[in-house]
């Protein structure tokens, strides 16, 4: 693959991992939008894991686990990726520099906290961030971070710190690049598989913490906040909104990205049902935004006023019902 002479084009994306994969594959000649990368890897999900704590708050995820998009694309469209991790920081840096000198663009997993270009308020200890390194000048890395509108930079030292942050999901300097990129995608066979996988996961996951059951479980927990400490209750609600809207969801906890994927697929395959499902998913996204607004209003209000936990829980339950219809629709599309 000779890409050394190719000019790198940065793309602004909603989510880091799908953004990286979309830009990377497009760079290697397989044009792919971010929603397509997200959709073909069946990345849409919901999980509420009260026993996994993130900064003292339970994990609420609107998508599948980190690296699932990279792995999903390998499985579904036959891309082959090489992922390298390092126990030695120096070696990790040298390897990245060698790859860059070869003219490769390289994906990297990093911590969010140590990225110097990120606004102060956005820096939290989260190790699952993804970005692309497209060059190095002197001791400065040229970085294409998909969640930024423009390209950014980091010094050798800063970037090393971000790549080798420790803790949960420690990146261990992980870098990745494709070793094989197919010339085209057989949408007619890949899309149905990817779409059905999401619908089934959301409708039928047997454990109560994932899929639509996870949403209902979260709703139940919101009702239980009534008896909890006020400060904790407000923080918990604010946490839900952050997980849904902050950095890298493309809005409404990935529901809009997925609606965009359904639309693109519907057009490619000339499938009316997918287009309808896309519109329904857009409406679901709007409902998630209303849900966030409802929470914001309740945590904004003065401390003396009581929060209507039941109304918030009801809203979430109605979204679960609404989503169920979309997934049922998706199952009838093929």
């Amino acid at each position, binding site marked *: 693959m000779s890409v050394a002479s190719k000019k790198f084009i940065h793309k*602004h*994306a*909603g989510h880091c991992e799908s*953004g990286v994969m979309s830009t990377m594959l497009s760079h290697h000649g397989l044009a792919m939008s*971010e*929603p397509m990368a997200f959709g073909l890897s069946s990345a849409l999900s919901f999980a509420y894991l009260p026993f996994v*704590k993130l*900064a*003292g708050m339970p994990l609420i995820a609107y998508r599948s686990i980190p690296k699932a998009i990279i792995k999903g694309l390998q499985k579904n469209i036959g891309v082959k990726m090489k992922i390298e991790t390092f126990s030695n920081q120096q070696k990790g840096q040298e390897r990245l520099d060698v790859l860059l000198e070869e003219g490769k663009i390289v994906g990297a997993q990093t911590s969010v*906290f*140590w990225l110097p270009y990120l*606004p*102060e*308020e*956005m*820096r*939290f*200890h989260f190790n699952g961030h993804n970005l692309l390194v497209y060059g190095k000048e002197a001791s400065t890395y040229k970085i294409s971070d*998909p*969640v*930024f*509108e423009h390209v950014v930079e980091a010094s050798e030292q800063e970037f090393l*710190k971000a790549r080798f*942050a*420790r*803790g*949960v999901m420690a990146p261990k300097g992980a870098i990745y690049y494709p070793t094989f990129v197919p010339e085209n995608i057989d949408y007619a066979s890949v899309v149905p598989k990817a779409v059905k996988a999401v619908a089934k996961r959301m409708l039928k996951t047997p454990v109560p913490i994932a899929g639509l059951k996870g949403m209902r479980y979260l709703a139940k927990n919101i009702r239980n906040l009534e008896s909890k400490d006020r400060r904790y209750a*407000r*923080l918990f609600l*604010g*946490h839900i*909104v*952050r997980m849904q*809207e*902050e*950095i890298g969801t*493309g*809005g*409404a906890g990935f529901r*809009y*990205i997925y*609606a*965009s994927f359904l*639309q*693109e697929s519907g057009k490619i395959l000339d499938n009316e049902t997918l287009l309808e499902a*896309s*519109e329904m998913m*857009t409406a679901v*996204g*709007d409902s998630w*935004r209303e849900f*966030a*607004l409802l*929470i*914001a209003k309740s*945590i*904004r209000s003065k401390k003396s006023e009581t929060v209507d936990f039941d109304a918030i829980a009801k809203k979430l339950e109605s979204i679960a019902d609404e989503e169920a219809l979309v997934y049922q629709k998706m199952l009838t599309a093929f």
Partner: protein
Amino acid sequence: MKAQEVPQDDNSTYHGEKRAVYATTKDGDYGVVASSGWDVEAEATQQAVAELQRLADEAYAACETGKCSPLEYHMYAKRLDLLSLSQATGLFQWRIKRHFNVKNFNKLSDKLLDRYADVMGITISELKKLPQKES
């Protein structure tokens, strides 16, 4: 969400940056719209930042009176908590808790102090004291 409904609330937390949001044109076609922020999201972010600030401030006050070691202050100031500090350093939580005690903290070896300082990105001498209070 329609493109013209994408919030442009100029979130201070973005520092002038923009976020990609997926929205539809008036023909219903999806695309990326750069958003300068949404108040709802900004409030949630600020709430989380304020909570960590509150914990750091409390620890600062306690450290000033010798009730806890500077380690506890620096932990919150660097947006860590007992769990994440334990995960990042590989030390047991009960052991870290012991180091919140001034007496125990003062006895720590440079090697152990460096383990803390490293994950926080500060020097050992910075870790050993409280920073000057911002006025």
